[in-house]
């Protein structure tokens, strides 16, 4: 059992939110995560997020798909059971292209998807932390993990309020 405490700043408007993130980070407060009902442009830059490496994973899985398709078809058509089809070579590369394409796309897509699930810790039995139900409706919520910050609660409260938070709440999660 671990007990995690969060302070939540609730924001009404994304422009206020972006400015708030900027000044809160410069004040030295570490932000755990920001939740919003719609994608906010430029929020990644403001939060200082690095670019995801997911595209590299996709490329590598795609490459794996290409190789598997080649190995499979050369193995089947050229080595294991060579057959003459339409007077072509035993290993007719142009005919392999559709299968190569499909397997490349399939493995790139699935590989990227499952890597994302694993990295994001998304599993069917995962218990999501619900900070505030209104993040699916009309409020932006900034979560600040108290364990990560040495500043005391009252001061964080004040910083959030100063930067346009419409309300400041606390939320505890008791998790296994």
């Amino acid at each position, binding site marked *: 059992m671990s007990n995690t405490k969060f302070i939540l700043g609730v924001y009404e408007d994304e422009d206020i939110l972006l400015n708030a993130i900027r000044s809160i980070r410069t004040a030295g407060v570490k932000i755990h995560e920001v939740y919003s009902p719609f994608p906010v442009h430029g929020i990644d830059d403001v939060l200082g997020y690095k670019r995801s490496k997911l*595209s590299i994973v996709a490329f590598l899985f795609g490459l794996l798909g290409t190789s598997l398709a080649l190995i499979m078809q050369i193995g089947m058509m050229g080595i294991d059971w060579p057959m003459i089809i339409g007077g072509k070579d035993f290993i007719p590369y*142009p005919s392999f292209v559709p299968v190569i394409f499909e397997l490349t796309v399939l493995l790139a897509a699935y590989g990227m998807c499952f890597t994302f699930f694993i990295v994001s810790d998304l599993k069917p039995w995962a218990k999501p932390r619900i900070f505030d139900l209104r993040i699916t409706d009309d409020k932006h919520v900034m979560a600040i993990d108290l364990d990560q910050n040495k500043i005391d609660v009252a001061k964080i409260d004040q910083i959030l309020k100063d930067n346009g938070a419409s309300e400041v709440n606390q939320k505890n999660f008791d998790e296994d």
Partner: protein
Amino acid sequence: MVIVEEKYDFSAKAKKNLIITIGIGIFLTILGIVSMSMGGHHEEVAHEGGHAFSWINRLGVDIWINNIYFTGIAIVGVFFFALQYAAQAGWSVGIKRIPLAFGSWLPISGIVMLVSFFVFGHDIFHWTHHDLYNTSSHEFDSIINAKKGYFFWPLVDHPSIPVFFIARMLFFFGLWYYLFTKLRKLAFQEDLEGGTVPWYNMRKLSAVFLVIFAITSSIAAWDWVMSIDTHWFSTMFGWYVFASWWVTTLALITFITIYLKEKGLLSIVNENHLHDIGKFVFAFSVFWAYIWFSQFLLIYYANIPEESIYFVERWNNDQYGIIFFVNLFLNFVLPFLLLMPRDAKRHTAILKIVIPIVIFGHWIDFYLMITPGTLKENGGYGLVEFGTMLIYGGAFLYVALNSLSKAPLFAKKDPMLDESLHHHVQ
């Protein structure tokens, strides 16, 4: 951000460079012709048409390749412009007048094409030979005879002048030029008036243009390129030619955008816009490969002689076999791998390498569509090809840049300008 109206100054130095390029092109072409006619006696083998091969044939074919290639860039430039309005695209405000300027090449290209058809038509198009339609001649060709209406109507009984073919050519160029000037006029009206009225008018006209373009570009591809291999046909051909034109135009837009940015112009275009147009080049290189392969695979797999002859002439051939693979490598493999990373499209370093390769690569694609069917074993690649390419390229850029310098680089009063300024790509 204060938006200042920008104008491209087509400086005397840039003009001089382009004229020198044309000069080098003329020099190389003449050098190529001289070397061909000096040492070319052994090349004068009578071919199917019954007359000897000479440098005139090769020059004619090279001129035709450039006609098709640059006409395509010109009309697809207008297509890109129209597409931005029809799709209500906001990001492209800063760059959309670059492709519009390409359209200024249309009247010149139309005249040159018509003249070169009358001068070199017999060297390029097998179907122009009258014996093919004469039942008493040993040259009589029942397959081409069945297609004669498409070229010679209404003179079907006495195929002398390809009236229908020429009428189509004139009609396409006339229509394209008319729509281009109308779009251009509306675009400049936007500079003066602003508001949404010119924008809505342009959207309406663009939609009309897109429909007309879809039909005419496809028929033009059959007429000007596919009819060279008169027996052969492919239902993919219109798309295939369009795909090649489209990638070339996108690459050229990127190229000129980078050129203008390095001159300190186009302040409203940043790496986000460059990213988008780079993605276009990347995506449509893949699209081109997809179209190319869709045409190829069915013919390869079915292996019906009258269809596969097209690839026998190009792939199973000592002369063109290498270019066949160079074409695929330059136009698909290279842009696919090099433009895949995000940073490659956002910074100019890699774009500056890939873009000229793609532009040149698609010239090779048109070379492969036209040369094997016209020159057969007499074809080659050398000074004449390179020289004519330089002449046309220099002249095209001269006309396009001159047209670009006549008006502001982007409409300050474009209703989409604000959206473009805030354009942000992840």
